C-alpha cells in the first residue's frame, strides 16, 4: 500500500534543467524520484529501481522515448509510462499509444498537466493492484473451496464405502451410479458389473422398483420409503433376507435420483433360527417325561387289545375280535399321530403353497370330528364366509392347525364340569383386508385358568392327564408361524375359549409372487 501512496517515478530527459525542475516539483508533492539523462541510462535505472511510473521525453539522442517505452513494456508491461511530446506531434503520440503509453504531456511541461497525468497513472496502478488482489483472492478461495469439496467428497465416498449397509444410488433415469461394497456383499454383483450398467429394475425386487417409481411420480418428499423386510435375489439366485429403506432425491422439485439402503439380515436370521432350534431342543428334553406317560397309555391300550383278540380267537367270538382289533387300530392311530406331531415339531418345514379352498378344508375338519362331537352331545356350528374363493395357501397347515384347535375345543367341552350346558363349537372363517383369512374356533366348554393360558405355547404342556402329548398347540403355532400367520387365544374359566388364526394368502396362479413376497 505504501507504494501506491508514494509511487516511485523515473524521469528520463536529456535536458538536465528539466529534470531538476520536475524533480523538485514532484518531490515536494511527496513522490520518490529517480532520474536519467538518456534512454539507455533510463533503462539501467529502471532495471535497478523498479519505478512504478516513468516520465520520459520522446526526443532524445541515442535511444529515444519510443524505444524506452518498448523495452520497459517488454520488461514489465504494468509500468505506467507517460510520454513528453512536442506540441501537436500526433504521429509520435499515436505510435507511443500503440506501444502502450499511458498518457501524454505536451512541452513545455506544466505542473497542472503533469499532476493530472500522474493522478491518472496512479489510479490505474491502484485499480490494477486491487484487481490483482481480488484475482489472487478469488483463485485462493476457489482453491480452498475445491479442496474442501474434495475433502468432503472423499469423506463421503469413504463413508459410503465403509458402511456395513448396502448403499445404492441412481441418477434421474434410475441408472445406478453408486454401489458400495456393502451392496456387493448382499447382491453378489461387483461394482464394475453394476455402476452405469444396471438400472434398479435389474437389481431390486419388483415391489421395491414399483415403490420407487410411484414415489417419484407422486413427488412425495416427506419420509421416503420406510424400513421394511424384503428378500432380494442375489447374483447366484439366492434369496437374501434384508431390511430396506429408500428415498427419491429431489432438486428444485424435480427427481434427480434415488438412494436405497439395504441391511443384510442373513446373520440375524441365522441366529434367530439357532435360538429357536435350541429352545425347541430344550422343550423336547423337558417333555420326555410327559411323553413317556402318553406312550405308556398307548401301550396299555395295545396290550389290552392284544388280550381281547387272544380271548376272542380262543372262543371264535367275532364281535369281541372286532372290538379288540378296533382298540389296537385306535392305538396305532395314536402312535402315528404322535410321531407325526414330533416330526412336525422337531423339523423345519416350508409351507407347500397350493391352490385350495379354505372353507372346504375347514369343512373336512368338522366332518372328521362330527362323530366324536355327537357322542358327547356337542353341536358343531359352521359359520363360513362364502366370499372366500380359491386361493394359494398351504392346505396341510390349515387342516392340521384347525383339526388341533377343533379337537381341543371338543375336549374342553367333554371335560367341562357344568353338565347342564348345551355345548357348542363354532368354527368360523372370514376374509380380512390385506389378503388375510381369519379362522376362529370358539367353544363354550371348560375354559382355562390364567395359569393354563400362560403355559399354552410355552413348552410341552398338557392338561389332559396323560391323554395329550402337549404337542398339539406347539405344532399348530409352528405351522402358523411358518405360514407367516398369527395365532391368538382368549379364554374365561367356565365360560369357554376362542382360538383365532390369521393366515395370509396369495391370489391364484401366480406362483412367482411367492418368491417375490416382501
Amino acid at each position, binding site marked *: 500500500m505504501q507504494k501506491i501512496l508514494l509511487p516511485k517515478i523515473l524521469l528520463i530527459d536529456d535536458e538536465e534543467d528539466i529534470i531538476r525542475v520536475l524533480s523538485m516539483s514532484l518531490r515536494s508533492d511527496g513522490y520518490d524520484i529517480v532520474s536519467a539523462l538518456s534512454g539507455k541510462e533510463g533503462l539501467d535505472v529502471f532495471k535497478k529501481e523498479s519505478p512504478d511510473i516513468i516520465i520520459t521525453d520522446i526526443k532524445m539522442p541515442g535511444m529515444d522515448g519510443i524505444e524506452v517505452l518498448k523495452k520497459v513494456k517488454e520488461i514489465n508491461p504494468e509500468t505506467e509510462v507517460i510520454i513528453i511530446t512536442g506540441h501537436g506531434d500526433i504521429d509520435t503520440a499515436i505510435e507511443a499509444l500503440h506501444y502502450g503509453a499511458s498518457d501524454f504531456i505536451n512541452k513545455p511541461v506544466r505542473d497542472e498537466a503533469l499532476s493530472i497525468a500522474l493522478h491518472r497513472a496512479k489510479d490505474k496502478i491502484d485499480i490494477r493492484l486491487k484487481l490483482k488482489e481480488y484475482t489472487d483472492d478469488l483463485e485462493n478461495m476457489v482453491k480452498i473451496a475445491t479442496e474442501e469439496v474434495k475433502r468432503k467428497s472423499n469423506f463421503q465416498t469413504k463413508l459410503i464405502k465403509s458402511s456395513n449397509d448396502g448403499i445404492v444410488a441412481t441418477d434421474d433415469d434410475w441408472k445406478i451410479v453408486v454401489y458400495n461394497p456393502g451392496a456387493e456383499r448382499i447382491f453378489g454383483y461387483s461394482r464394475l458389473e453394476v455402476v452405469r450398467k444396471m438400472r434398479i429394475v435389474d437389481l431390486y425386487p419388483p415391489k421395491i422398483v414399483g415403490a420407487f417409481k410411484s414415489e417419484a411420480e407422486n413427488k412425495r418428499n416427506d419420509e421416503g420409503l420406510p424400513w421394511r423386510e424384503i428378500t432380494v435375489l442375489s447374483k447366484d439366485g439366492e434369496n437374501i433376507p434384508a431390511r430396506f429403506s429408500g428415498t427419491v432425491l429431489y432438486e428444485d422439485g424435480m427427481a434427480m435420483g434415488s438412494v436405497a439402503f439395504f441391511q443384510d439380515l442373513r446373520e440375524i436370521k441365522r441366529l434367530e433360527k439357532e435360538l429357536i432350534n435350541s429352545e425347541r431342543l430344550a422343550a423336547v428334553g423337558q417333555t420326555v417325561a410327559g411323553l413317556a*406317560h402318553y406312550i*405308556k*397309555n398307548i*401301550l*396299555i*391300550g395295545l*396290550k*389290552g*387289545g392284544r*388280550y*381281547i383278540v387272544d*380271548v376272542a380267537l380262543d372262543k371264535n367270538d367275532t364281535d*369281541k375280535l372286532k*372290538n*379288540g382289533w378296533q*382298540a389296537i387300530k*385306535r*392305538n396305532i392311530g395314536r402312535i402315528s399321530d404322535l410321531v407325526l406331531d414330533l416330526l412336525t415339531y422337531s423339523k423345519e418345514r416350508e409351507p407347500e403353497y397350493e391352490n385350495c379352498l379354505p372353507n372346504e378344508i375347514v369343512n373336512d375338519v368338522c366332518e372328521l370330528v362330527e362323530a366324536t362331537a355327537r357322542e358327547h352331545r356337542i353341536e358343531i356350528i359352521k359359520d363360513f364366509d362364502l366370499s372366500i374363493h380359491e386361493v394359494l395357501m398351504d392346505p396341510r397347515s390349515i387342516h392340521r392347525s384347525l383339526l388341533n384347535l377343533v379337537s381341543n375345543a371338543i*375336549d374342553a367341552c*367333554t*371335560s*367341562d*364340569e357344568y*353338565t347342564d350346558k348345551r355345548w357348542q363349537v363354532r368354527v368360523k372363517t372370514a376374509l380380512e383386508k390385506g389378503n388375510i383369512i381369519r379362522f376362529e374356533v370358539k367353544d363354550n366348554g371348560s375354559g382355562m385358568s390364567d395359569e393354563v393360558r400362560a403355559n399354552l405355547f410355552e413348552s410341552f404342556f398338557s392338561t389332559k*392327564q*396323560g*391323554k395329550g402329548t402337549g404337542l398339539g398347540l406347539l405344532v399348530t403355532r409352528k405351522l402358523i408361524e411358518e405360514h407367516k400367520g398369527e395365532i391368538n387365544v382368549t379364554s374365561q374359566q367356565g365360560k369357554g375359549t376362542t382360538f383365532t388364526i390369521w393366515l395370509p394368502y396369495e391370489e391364484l396362479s401366480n406362483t412367482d409372487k411367492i418368491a417375490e413376497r416382501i
Partner: protein
Amino acid sequence: MGKKVLCVDDDPDIRLFVVTVLEENGYTPLTASNGEEGIKIIREEKPDLVILDVLMPRQSGIKMYRELKTDDSLKNISVIMLSGIARRTFLRSQEALTEFGNENVPEPEAYLEKPVEPEELAEMIKKVIG
C-alpha cells in the same frame, strides 16, 4: 350269573379290556365313562365291586371314591383303584383330602397301577370279592 363288577374309566380301550377280563373270569361287567355316571349306576345296580380310574374328565375318580365311601348305603362296596398314577401319589392325595375335609375315608381294598396284566387283575378281583 356272576357277581356284578362296575368298571369306571374314560378310556374305551381300558373298559373293553376290563370287561373282557371280567367275562373271562365269570363276572357280570358294567361300565361307566365318568364318575357321575358311575355313581348313578352304583345306586341302581348295587355292584359287588367297582374298578375305578383315578384321572378322568368331568368327575375324577378321587371325588367319586370319596362320595362312595362316605355314603352309608354304599360304603361297603369294594373298590379296586386302577390308575396310571402311582399308588403312593394317590394315597398322599387321600391323606391331604382327609386332613382338609376332616372326614375319615378308608384306603381302597386294592390299588393297581396301569398297565396291568389280565391275570394280575383277575387274581386281585378274586382276592377282594371272591
